[in-house]
């Protein structure tokens, strides 16, 4: 697994008609993006949300701590593992997966530049997260 291959994987996801306009992988502790797609669908939505990768990583700084809290809640209330979180915005959607890669928190965010189409987006983000996680396990190994 190399970065180029991973980049291709992210690009491939956003180029398909699946409601996903962007994918960002970021380090929530340091609020920095690690990887993101570099190609876009011609009819992409919400340009500014998709271009501002570090801005999104910055906004979601510390989100892993909130996810930890939710994991505890899931466990204590017997509701099971936290699978993902969704932020519904006035003009977009963020689907967030809170991963631990080599014991460090990593967040994968699937972005949509429109507030509609959550169903399709969830369907495709769920289908791709395993591939992304497995690739990150290799890419982020020290």
């Amino acid at each position, binding site marked *: 697994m190399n970065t180029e291959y991973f980049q291709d994987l992210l690009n491939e996801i956003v180029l398909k008609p699946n409601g996903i306009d962007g994918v960002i992988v970021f380090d929530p502790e340091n609020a920095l993006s690690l990887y993101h797609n570099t190609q876009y669908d011609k009819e992409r939505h919400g340009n*500014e*949300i998709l271009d*501002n990768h570090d*801005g*999104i990583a*910055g*906004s*979601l*700084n*510390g*989100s892993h*701590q*909130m996810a*930890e*809290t*939710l994991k*505890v*809640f*899931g*466990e*204590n*209330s*017997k*509701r*099971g*593992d*936290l*699978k*993902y*979180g*969704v*932020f*519904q*915005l*006035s*003009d*977009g959607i963020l689907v967030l997966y809170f991963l631990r890669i080599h014991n460090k928190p990593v967040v994968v965010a699937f972005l949509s530049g429109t*507030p509609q189409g*959550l*169903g399709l987006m*969830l369907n495709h983000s769920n289908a791709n997260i395993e591939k992304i996680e497995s690739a990150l396990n290799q890419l982020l190994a020290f």
Partner: protein
Amino acid sequence: MWPFKEPLNPYVIGNAVGNSSVFVGREDVLQEVRNVLQHQHQGAIVLYGQRRIGKTSILKELEAKLAQAGYLPIFFDLQDKGKFPLEQVNQELANKISDKLNSQSTTLENILFHWQSSKKLVILFDEFEAFAGNEFEERQASEAFFPYWRDILAKVDKAKLNFVFTLGRKVEDLNQKAMSLLKAIPSTKVSLLCEEETRQLIRLSDSENNKTLKWDEEAIKTVRTQTGGHPFITQILCYCIWNQFCEIKPHSKPKVRVTDVKANLTKALETGENAFQWLWDGLPATEKLVTSILASTGNKPITAQALEQLLKDNGLRIKKEEQQKATDILKDWDVIEEHVVGKKFRFRVELFRHWIAKNRQLQKVQLELDSHDIMAHNFYEASRNLWATGQLEAAIDNLKKALKLNPNHISANALLTETYLDTQNWKKAWKTAKSFSLMRPKFARPLLSQALEKLIAGQNEDTQLHYYEETLKIDPEHNSIKQQWQKIWQQRGENAYLIGNMEKALEAFQKIGSIEKVIEIQNQLAQEINQTQRIIEAFLIELVQETTTLDGIFIYESQGEKIYLGTKNGIDTIQKSIIANSLFGSKENQKNKISILGLREIVERIKDEQNDREFECAFFQFATSILSIYLIPNAKIYDDCGNKNEEVFMMVGIISANNAIGIFIKESKKAVTRIKEKLPIDIKSNKIE
């Protein structure tokens, strides 16, 4: 009639048996060596295995067999040479080769790099790890020895020169220098004999060369059960059995039966004392402790979990990884085996287990480990004398030195605690007892109690609690300390209960796990729930019950930091407590953003950094439920005078066990709209407008 004038015991328990009719089996190992010697580019092989497993015998056998096959084998024993300078060792080896060639003495380099003989030279190094010891001289010698031989191995012509090394440990367990030489060389393990080889060994007294005994089949099986095919231990047991029958020169050939084997076990343990001791000495410290515990449980296989419990019951605190490593090493060294079914451990050599159970009980092993570091032990011995003559400060000095060299010295830890107690240095006594407890909690307990009792005497209750809690962190199973700690909290809980301070009482009883009291107080508190709570929660219950998918709705309000919850089944204090503790937690958690309130800040940032993009809601998908969170940043509530002018932050959480996310979103949005419509909530005057 007895066939010999002087009957001969065919079993050998002293010397290596290679190149004699007593050598049995090992064809697999010999074949491995042959393969390497015939190979064009592989010039060396390592044979490794536990002590007394027969490595030297194999080298001796190779020495004879290789000579017959046209090689020039040189057996060279490195035992006791570990502290010699390299030049001296090399010269001894050179002389040995020259003697064999009947030529004049020359340097080793001269021999190795100018080998003229048509015969291939094979140097058989025995005890090669003699240079990998830890003593200063050995370390110094290894600095020169291993790099020298690495260089030789790289340069010599492998068509003319080959090497066989024996090691009493695995290549990976050697020091860096030794490993750099041997890691690239193929290695093969010399293990216990297989069933057929063991049988052949046992029947040395009923073979072509020696017809002094007959063996009952069951007796052979019993020998194998007892020795596990360990060649040396098998010889010891058979040697004793043979002596029992043949020393009296019987008139007919006696038959060995199971009872005879069993009758000779004790004798074998005595005869093999030195060998068992030697095997034991080869085990590292943790492995000795694990082996001692395993041996004490008899010959029934036990699981890793049972072993862990046994270690704990015996007061040994060995980390799980350390225990795993120890059992792996013991398996590697053929001391124990792991049954595939049930993954249970048991000894491979039952006689060795007997010897350990009899001679190496846990307490003895711990004292033995104390004396491993000689310098540390000397300091300890000196301090004992000083302590006995009342020179306590000097004793402390020596004990500190002993523990600096060997922090695990059990007796030094114990004596230092005692000496601090003698000098009335309670705090130091307590601290030392705590360190001691980290290693051997069971042994440290009486001293830890004593030190703690002295340390907290006359202190106020808060200080006492602090020290109890600090001590219990180290040894949570220290029952007497736990009881005293519980007694204080029990008293505190009862006092608070009497004066009606239910929150304090609840906290105290929760701490000591007094379930009945906790339930009693929680019920009382539930009855005392205030009117506001009832009204708000009744509204939430109604909201939930109107929907098809929602299970519960909670509201958190920032002013009173209160949580209101309505569920499908009405009021649910357990759910509320889970929400309060898991999602909102302590104030400290909230301050450190380790709570769901961290979402508020994230939303603010999204708004700031994303051009005033509005956050509508978040939802979180769990394995069996969905939780959605809505924020109401400026909910109005009434002030104390009934004026609607205070703005508070509210968080609304909606939970559903139905994973149909589409319906859930629709219903939760509707519920939030209803809550917003009901605002402002009059918290102070107990009503909803």
